[in-house]
C-alpha cells in the first residue's frame, strides 16, 4: 500500500490540503514579501501567518495562508483526482483532487497551478485598473 505526504493548511477558516511535494518550503507570513499571492479562489487571508512557497519557472512564489496545521502521511487511496465533470465545471485547475480524511473531505490544491492562475488574474485586474 503506497502513501502520500500532504500538508494541511487553512484559508478563511476552511481547511485544505496540498501535496507535500508541491511545496518547496514554508515561509513566515509577511505583508511586504514580493511574489506572494494573497487572494485566490480559496479566499483572502487578512493576516496570513504562513506562506506556501512553490517553484514556478525557476523562481519562488508563495500562496498566503492563515495557518499551516501540519504534515500528514495518508494512504494514497485517500487521495482522489477530481471527476472530469467536476474538473470541467469548477472553472479552475488549481484544485487537483479530493482528500478523504477521517470524516471530512478536503480539496487537494495544485499549488503551482493555483499560484499561476491567481497571478494571471491579479495581472489582469492590475491592467484593468
Amino acid at each position, binding site marked *: 500500500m503506497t502513501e502520500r505526504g500532504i*500538508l494541511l493548511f487553512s484559508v478563511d477558516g476552511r481547511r485544505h490540503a496540498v501535496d507535500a511535494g508541491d511545496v518547496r*518550503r514554508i515561509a*513566515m507570513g509577511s505583508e511586504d514579501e514580493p511574489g506572494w499571492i494573497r487572494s485566490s479562489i480559496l479566499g483572502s487571508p487578512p493576516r496570513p501567518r*504562513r506562506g506556501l512557497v512553490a517553484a514556478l519557472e525557476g523562481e519562488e512564489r508563495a500562496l498566503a495562508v492563515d495557518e*499551516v496545521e*501540519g504534515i500528514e*502521511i495518508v494512504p494514497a487511496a485517500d487521495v482522489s483526482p477530481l471527476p472530469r465533470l467536476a474538473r470541467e465545471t469548477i472553472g479552475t485547475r488549481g484544485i487537483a483532487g479530493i482528500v478523504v480524511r477521517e470524516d471530512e473531505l478536503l480539496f487537494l490544491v495544485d499549488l503551482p497551478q493555483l499560484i499561476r492562475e491567481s497571478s494571471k488574474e491579479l495581472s489582469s485586474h492590475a491592467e484593468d485598473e
Partner: protein
Amino acid sequence: MRKTSEAAKASPRSKSGSGQAEAIFRVLQNLANGDYGERVDVDRITSPQLKRIAALVNDVAEHATDQIRGVQERNKSLRDGMQEALDAILQVVNQGELSGSTGIRNPSPTLSPLVKGIDQLLATLRSFTLEMGEASLQISASSAEVLAAATQHESSMAQQASAVHETTATMAELKSAAGNIADNARTVAAVAEQTVIAARAGEAALKSLLSAIQTISQDADAIHEAMERLSRRVERIGSVVEVIDEIADRSDLLALNAALEGAKAGEAGRGFSIVAAEMRRLAENVLTSTQEIKSLIGEIREATDETARATERNRQSAKEGEDQADQAMQSVQAILAGIEETSDAARVIHLATQQQRSATEQVVQSMTDLEAVTRQAQEGAAQAAGAAAELAKLADRLSSLARRFRVS
C-alpha cells in the same frame, strides 16, 4: 282820780290823833306798795304836825306820781323807739331790707345811741352784705374756675394714671422681654462657646484630615510610581514574551519545514518527520504558553492601566481633597474667628441685657411708684374737684343768702 284815804275822810274831830296818823301811815303804806294815787285829806288832819306830815306825804306822793308819769312817758318813748328799732331789725331779719336806715328821726337822747348804733349796724350789714355778695360772686367764679381746673386736672391725672399704667404694663412686658433677651443671649453665648469648642475640634479634625489626605496623596504618588515601574516591567516581560513567541513561531516553522522535508523523503524521512513533529509540538506548546502569558500580560496591563487610572483618580481626588480641606480649613478658621467674635458679642449682649433687665426692673418699680402717686394725685384732684363743687354750692348759697338782703 285821786282817792282820799277813808281814815283821812273821817272827821278829824271824831277821830283821835292816832286815827289821823293811821290815815297817814296807810297812805305811806300804799306808796310803799307802789300805789301813788291815794292822798291824805289834810283838811281832816287836826294836828299841825300830822298836818305838815300829811301835806309832806301828799307832796311826796304827788312828786312821785309826777316822777312816775315822767318815767312812764319816757318809758313809752323808749318803748316806741325800741319798737321802731325792733321793727327795723325785724324788717332786716324778715325782709332783708338793708337799703335804708331805721327811719327814726330825732330820737330821744336815750335811744339816740341805740338808733345810731342800729343805723351803723345796718350800714355795716349793708356794706358787709355788699362785700359778701361780691365775695360770694368772686368765690363762685373762682370755685367754678377751681372746679373746672380740678376737673381738668382730675381728667389729666386720670389720663396720666392710665398712661402710667399702660407704660408700667409696657415696661413690665419690656422687663419680661429683656429677661427673655438676657436668657436668650446667655443661651446664645453658651451655644457660641460650645460652637467655638466644636469649631476648634473641627479645625483639629480638619488638620488630621488634611494630614491624612496628604498621606493618601503621597501614597497615591508612590502607588503611581510603583504602577509605572510595574507597567514598564510588564512591558518588558511582554517584549521578552514577544521574543519567545517569535522564536517559538520560527521553531514551529522550522519544524514544519523539517516535517515537510521528511514527508518529501518518504520512508527515509519518517524518523525525521517524527522528530520534527515533536519539535513542532514543543514549539506549539511554547506558543500556547506565550499566548497565555500574553493574555496574562494583557490582563495585567489592563489591571495596571485600571490601577494607574484609579491611582491617578485617587491622586486627583487626594489633590482635590487637599485643596478642599485647605479651603475647608480656611473656612473653618474664618468661621472660628467669626464664632469667637460672635461669642464675644454674645457675652457683651448678655451683660448688656442683664444691665438692661436690671434697669428695666428699676424703671418698672419707679413706674409702679409713679402710678401709685398718680393715683393718689388723681384721688386728690377728685377730692379737690369735689371740694370746689362743694365750694361753688356754698358760694351759690352764700350769694343766694346775700341776695335776700336788699342793699339798694
